[in-house]
């Protein structure tokens, strides 16, 4: 089993590639290099000689930009992959939101449509690809649903989230989103906390891996719970005594995603924690130093794909344009792109995980 976490500074996104026996693989989320506009997980699969026909499934954990850019390209290139995402129980509600978002791409500047300002354009293309193939519809992820199994390998992959309550709330949110984007023609804003994201639990030859996506702690009410609160209330797929030795830390290590019970009950002391950073706005990024210390203090090894994207100066331009920007007083800060990759490979003989870092990725304790 090989787990590759691709991350970028500056909030351009993250992606995970899983590979296991017989060249089979899966892709969880997608991101792009904004300079070359290339899809990073696909590029990784191609450059390492992966057989794209053996990509078994693709998961769009949620529809935030930093998790879905390029995912339609991945799906298009992988003809046999089953597509999983978080969606309403009633697909038609989710599809209405997707189409509503599409109707907001009216204005065109310099011949370029403003699809960059649409949240769901990638998912819409995915649905078109799935419809054109006509062999397997999209799958809706939910806590305890089996995503993939190979009995011979003792490989099982389950969704840990979203919970029943989170999906109900999601359906209500979608109705509000449709109303808002119809009335104000805005892009769908990010609304927290993120309890709709699809966290995954992977069991492979006795090893336990948790891929936390952007799942946050969530809430608990009389009607049930959401987020990690719901996961900690018990999932059938999580057998007692299981402890993750590999963890993709949820929501970029933000404090709002770190459930204390999760770290004490589901994570092994020797855990290898893998992280990616995210930049919300100029002064708000995760993880900060306190959040990094929290994760590192509970992990045997901690790796992150890069620091957050530095912000300060406008991006390099020709002298005339730079002068003009300065003269009109427009305050701009470039969101730097940094590419980092963490690759860990399971050594069956020694029952160890070996780590390789590329690009701007680094480890710390």
């Amino acid at each position, binding site marked *: 089993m090989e787990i590759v976490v691709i991350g970028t500074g500056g909030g351009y996104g993250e992606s995970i590639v899983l590979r296991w026996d017989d060249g089979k693989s899966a892709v969880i989320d997608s991101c792009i290099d904004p300079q070359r506009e290339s899809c990073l997980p696909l590029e990784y699969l191609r450059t390492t000689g992966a057989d794209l026909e053996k990509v078994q499934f693709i998961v769009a954990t949620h529809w935030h930009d930093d998790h879905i850019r390029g995912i339609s390209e991945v799906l298009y290139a992988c003809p046999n992959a089953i597509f999983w995402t978080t969606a309403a129980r009633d697909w038609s509600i989710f599809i209405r939101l997707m189409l509503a978002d599409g109707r907001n791409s009216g204005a065109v500047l310099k011949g370029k449509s403003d699809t960059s300002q649409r949240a769901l354009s990638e998912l819409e293309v995915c649905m078109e690809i799935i419809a054109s193939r006509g062999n397997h519809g999209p799958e809706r992820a939910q806590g305890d649903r089996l995503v993939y199994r190979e009995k011979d390998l003792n490989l099982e992959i389950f969704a840990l989230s979203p919970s029943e309550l989170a999906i109900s709330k999601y359906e209500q949110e979608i109705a509000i989103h449709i109303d808002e984007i119809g009335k104000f023609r805005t892009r769908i804003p990010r609304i927290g906390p993120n309890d709709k994201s699809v966290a995954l639990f992977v069991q492979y030859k006795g090893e336990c891996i948790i891929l936390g996506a952007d799942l946050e702690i969530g809430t608990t009410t009389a009607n049930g719970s959401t987020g990690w609160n719901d996961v900690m209330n018990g999932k059938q797929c999580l057998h007692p005594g299981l402890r993750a030795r590999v963890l993709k830390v949820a929501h970029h290590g933000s404090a709002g995603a770190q459930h204390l019970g999760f770290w004490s009950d589901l994570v092994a002391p020797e855990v290898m924690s893998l992280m990616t950073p995210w930049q919300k706005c100029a002064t708000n990024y995760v993880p900060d130093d306190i959040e990094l210390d929290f994760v590192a203090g509970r992990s045997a090894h901690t790796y992150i794909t890069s620091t957050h994207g530095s912000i300060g100066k406008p991006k390099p331009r020709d002298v005339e344009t730079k002068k003009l920007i300065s003269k009109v007083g*427009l305050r701009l800060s470039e969101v730097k792109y940094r590419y980092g990759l963490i690759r860990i490979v399971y050594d069956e003989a020694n029952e160890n995980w070996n780590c390789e870092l590329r690009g701007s990725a680094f480890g710390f304790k």
Partner: protein
Amino acid sequence: MIVTTDKEGVADIHQDATDDRILRWVSSKVTNEAVVQSTSSPTEPFSLEVEEGLMKNLFIKPVLEKESTVRFKATQSWVGHIIRVDEDAIEVRFHDLNSGGTDEIALLDWDDINPDDKSLVRLGAVVYCSVGRMIRNGQVLNAQITRLRRLASWNLNDIDSLSDEAAARMRSLGLK
């Protein structure tokens, strides 16, 4: 002179506003490479002719006393969306429309936003911004144009057709 518009884009110009405010207002209606030509007449309404841009069907009631020409040539343009709003400033994540590549975060003052657009400021609102040269009556000015996307709200027909389209998409995906 003061310029105000109603919902149909009809503008009134009052004599007590300054030329500069007119210029700012006109600029806010214009996107890239637009040329605005106004021809005044003391008795008849005049239209602003836009060679290229998004302004359409804009009629301004009198009265300017002499012919004026406003020409804006964008050097650099962005499209982005609002990621933070507070009392002091608005933060926008911009995508570079000239050369692509990395994004930029802009900190805009509320004063950078046209008064007509202020009601549109909210998280997720789409913002267009250009910097360039504005030529007015032979005078060259450095200018920044910031405009929020303004599209008509959906009506009942739009909502109905959305449901129809969703049903068709469901069928094509084999979903029930």
